[in-house]
């Protein structure tokens, strides 16, 4: 090393050749992994879907069963997501702006759907609304269909997506604090105008972010919906279930065509998410952020 004593001190921090090779190898490994486990499968979905040409691709998508699955999926998302937004705002408002008994219990409850397996979520609803469940006999007497019908699918989807908006909003609203709201109250604003004029404008990006996550999950949910769906073609089959059915029928092109719709939805979600991050500066919050009381 004595021969290199005239090298400027900053260069000492430069990686040596083996170190540099190690870095390149690690980067390559990561890229390879990303390519093999993420990009290649996504490309494969589209490749399979288009393997018989565009014409058959569009024919597959235009099948009555696929269209009805698409409609059902849209319907379920359009009910589950607004409910999620209302609940999410209410819960995070309550948790971050007020002190009350059982607050930490409420926070834990909000997280339950994240820790419960979707299959279990579906089975809980069968247990409650099924023919031999607690409410089953009463529902049957009144000819109301919940399980193995659209309401059951909506319920299951609402359950699994419930934490998404609240989980985004709570840390965000905590970081913001309630100074502006306090100021508004001091200046004489009532509850509603504080919410509409101060709180909502402040949280809109985080809210949108959470909404998109909830929407994407409600479109893609498989496990919980599979349990409560009854798999009636054209009636209680959502798009993810239809993909499985088509695959099981050896209609691989149609299955992948339907799957490509789901993949597209996911990609659109990612793009919107990224756009929100860029325009608003909202970043995904770490999952395990502590909630102070």
């Amino acid at each position, binding site marked *: 090393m004595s021969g290199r004593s005239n090298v400027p001190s900053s260069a000492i921090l430069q990686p040596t050749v083996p170190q540099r090779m190690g870095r390149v190898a690690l980067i390559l490994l990561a890229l390879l992994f990303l390519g093999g486990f993420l990009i290649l499968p996504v490309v494969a979905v589209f490749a399979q879907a288009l393997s018989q040409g565009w014409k058959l691709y569009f024919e597959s998508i235009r099948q009555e069963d696929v269209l009805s699955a698409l409609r059902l999926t849209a319907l379920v998302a359009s009910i589950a997501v607004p409910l999620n937004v209302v609940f999410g705002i209410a819960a995070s408002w309550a948790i971050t702006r007020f002190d009350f008994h059982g607050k930490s219990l409420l926070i834990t409850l909000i997280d339950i759907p994240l820790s419960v397996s979707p299959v279990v979520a579906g089975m809980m609803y*069968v247990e409650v609304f099924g023919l*031999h*469940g607690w409410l*089953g006999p009463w529902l049957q007497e009144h000819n109301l269909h919940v399980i193995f019908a659209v*309401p059951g699918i909506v319920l299951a989807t609402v359950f699994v997506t419930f934490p998404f908006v609240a989980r985004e909003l709570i840390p965000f609203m905590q970081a913001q604090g309630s100074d502006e709201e306090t100021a508004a109250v001091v200046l004489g604003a009532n509850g509603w105008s504080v919410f509409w004029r101060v709180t909502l404008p402040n949280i809109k990006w985080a809210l949108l972010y959470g909404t998109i996550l909830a929407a994407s999950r409600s479109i893609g949910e498989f496990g919980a919906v599979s349990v409560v769906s009854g798999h*009636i073609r054209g009636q209680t089959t959502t798009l993810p279930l239809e993909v499985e059915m088509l695959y*099981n*029928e050896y209609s691989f092109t149609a299955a992948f065509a339907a799957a490509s719709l789901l993949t597209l939805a996911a990609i659109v979600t990612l793009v919107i998410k990224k756009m929100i991050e860029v325009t608003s500066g909202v970043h995904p919050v770490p999952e395990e952020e502590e909630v102070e009381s």
Partner: protein
Amino acid sequence: MTSLSRKITASLFLAIVTIVGASALSAQTHLLNVSYDPTREFYEEYNKLFAQHWKATTGEDVVINQSHGGSGKQASAVIDGLEADVVTLALAYDIDAIAQNGGLLDKDWQTKLPYNSTPYTSTIVLLVRKGNPQHIHDWDDLIRPGVKVITPNPKTSGGARWNYLAAWGYALHKSGNNEQGARDFMKKLFNNVPVLDSGARGATTTFVQRGVGDVLIAWENEALLALKEFGSDKFEIVIPSETILAEPPVAVVDKVAQRHGTEKVARAYLEYLYSPEAQDLEARYFYRPRLKQAAEKYASQFPKVNTFTVMEGCGGWQKAQAKHFSDGGTFDQIYGK
């Protein structure tokens, strides 16, 4: 702004009421046929045939909806309230379960239609890769070391139970009704199973699409369908020297049909499965028809097989279930040890 949120609440409520009401109020006659996986293609065609027949004989329109899944899972769904007017499942045990746990149909349901309420049958065969590179000709070849056998999990799949009982029946006869001998045979057989799919269609896909295994134990109709879908230049069917007669039964779910007022059309739907036109269709979808006429027409497709029934092989489904597939039963004893 309160009026806006009120509007939102109101329209949400309206949407839910519409959805709930829609299924109850529609004027057309609807039938729901809850079936198992491999019958999708057949019932799609049969439903059209029956709708025509019903329109021609009564002038009424009938729309038949289908639900497919693993046989046991479907039976549970019906017990939990999936409103099936008729069930067409893989084995009598699953319909027995609906009768016992749900009380939705009489316990003697199987006597209500001809041939033990099974309008079509199938059998269990071996599907191998073209040229039969592992020289598989009978059940004995499946227990040779190094042969990879694909069959689904008999705990979850109705089809797999037929596979299991076919092998069991053969092993029992071969060892001169020595149960220990049959047990040893089954243990060796399942030692050769690298992956247990949860359903019959899943196992077929594993073998056919993913290329895993040397031999697939399958229903004959599944094997013939695989040949048709993937080409007879890729696979061939081996008929074992002895196998089981697979009888997938059908039944009207009396309580549900009564509530829907669909008893008549539900019964007609199942009875028409025995008609010459339907029997012909069943044969085209690779189920062995009961009617002699259709059986003769498609004789080349269905080679003669030497079969035994569940009753002959193990004294009926209740006994087979208790002995082999219940927790701690023979299957649990031989598998994974």
